């Protein structure tokens, strides 16, 4: 977790970005309420970096329907896609790491496309979300450490949500994305020379949607969409 910047002390603007952190109270509200309207109101905080439109949170908890799960997955995939698009453009990656990042970027884009297609008119897109990954592109080591955490979170998120999916066919589709995320995780751990090696555990750890959203909010990466 070392590459993820510590959120500034509660309510204080981040010295690097001038951006206020997402508030802890908002986090618990997300978990408890899941009201898109209320979240939008919270998003329009006085720091001026909330949704530029009277925007909506693209994910609402708890996940009640298959569409809810798909939206949750789409949000996570948009986050990952943006992370790798910016990483490839950053100029700090080289060699095998650049090759891997480019490949992973394309995988995540395909996941976004597939989820948007499945959601149809209920889909949202990159205009509805925005991310700031802080110092993740300061150097290749930072990129790898953050990539490892993002992928591991994606793996836990899919695993924690697959049992919420009613459609058995959709479970298989989610699984076929989940395993790609797991592949990414191992590859980034390998190149990051993570302690414990590329595959440190015999079992994956599922994360509930609530835990995942809390973890994502805690990174401070999300500037619009939650």
């Amino acid at each position: 977790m070392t590459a993820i910047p510590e959120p500034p002390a509660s309510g204080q603007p981040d010295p690097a970005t001038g951006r206020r952190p997402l508030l802890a109270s908002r986090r618990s509200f997300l978990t408890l309420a899941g009201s898109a309207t209320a979240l939008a109101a919270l998003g329009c905080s006085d720091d001026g970096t909330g949704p530029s439109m009277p925007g909506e949170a693209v994910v609402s908890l708890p996940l009640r329907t298959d569409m809810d799960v798909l939206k949750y997955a789409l949000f996570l995939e948009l986050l990952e896609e943006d992370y790798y698009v910016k990483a490839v453009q950053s100029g700090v990656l080289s060699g095998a790491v650049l090759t891997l990042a480019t490949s992973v970027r394309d995988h995540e884009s395909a996941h976004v496309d597939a989820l948007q297609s499945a959601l149809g008119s209920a889909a949202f897109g990159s205009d509805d979300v925005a991310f700031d990954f802080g110092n993740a592109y300061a150097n290749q080591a930072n990129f790898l450490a953050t990539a490892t955490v993002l992928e591991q979170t994606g793996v836990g998120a899919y695993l924690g949500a697959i049992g919420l999916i009613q459609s058995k066919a959709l479970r298989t589709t989610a699984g076929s994305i989940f395993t790609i995320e797991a592949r990414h995780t191992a590859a980034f751990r390998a190149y990051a020379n993570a302690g414990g090696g590329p595959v440190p555990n015999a079992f994956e750890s599922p994360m509930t949607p609530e835990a995942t959203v809390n973890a994502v909010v805690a990174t401070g990466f999300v500037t619009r969409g939650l």
Partner: protein
Amino acid sequence: MRNAPPRLIHFDAKELDSVSERRRFLGNLAIAVGAIGLVPMIRRGAGIGELLAQSGGETEPGLSDTDILNYALTLEYLEATFYLRADSTGPLPTGAIVAAIDPDGMGAPGTVPGLSGRMAPAPATFSVPTFVRAVRDHEIIHVLALKSALGANALPRDQFAFDFGTAFDSAANFMATALVLEDTGVTAYLGQAGNLDSLAILGTAGTILGVEAEHAATFRLLNNQPVSPNDADFDSPKSSSEIVAAAGGFITAAPALPFP
């Protein structure tokens, strides 16, 4: 990798009833093992029917959750045996003994020539032998977990026999075979994700599946391959008959199997 693998060897399962025919088949298998993953299975036992002409990922409504767990156990037996024959050194996970994991592996080498000298691809620096031993232990832990879940319904290991041909002759052979086994495991688990009824079992199977995918990706890096087959954006679910066609060549004896 999205299509059913072509078969290099065509045979009639009835021919294999005689010992000599089985021996001949194993000879062919040793030749074919260079094209691992493309060999058919020796199909024995009352529960093994015709190879089904199923398309990838087609659901298999005839399989119960117990059947699917035994299917997973079979694949984990195969994998645990494979890695134990590649490295039988060092302590095994708690509760595991060699004679129980690999009762038919008396002639197993226990080492692979050249494996200790293999380097991880830069900028990775992990120890390849340490990674292989970790994978071995993961697969043994998966066996123990699935046996525990199945209880008295678990297919007994001593009714299986496995033969990996020339896989342990060189580090290159070993790496290539490991890649195929792990990728096959991923597609096998994935193929059953929509067939499980119990959400608890689905979740447990998922915790194993993800680790198989991680193994697969690492062996792909070690083989200078992209992390997914053909750099695919999605993994492909495969039916049990497709898995039997891809990995069954390593299975030289099996009890009556519920699949396919």
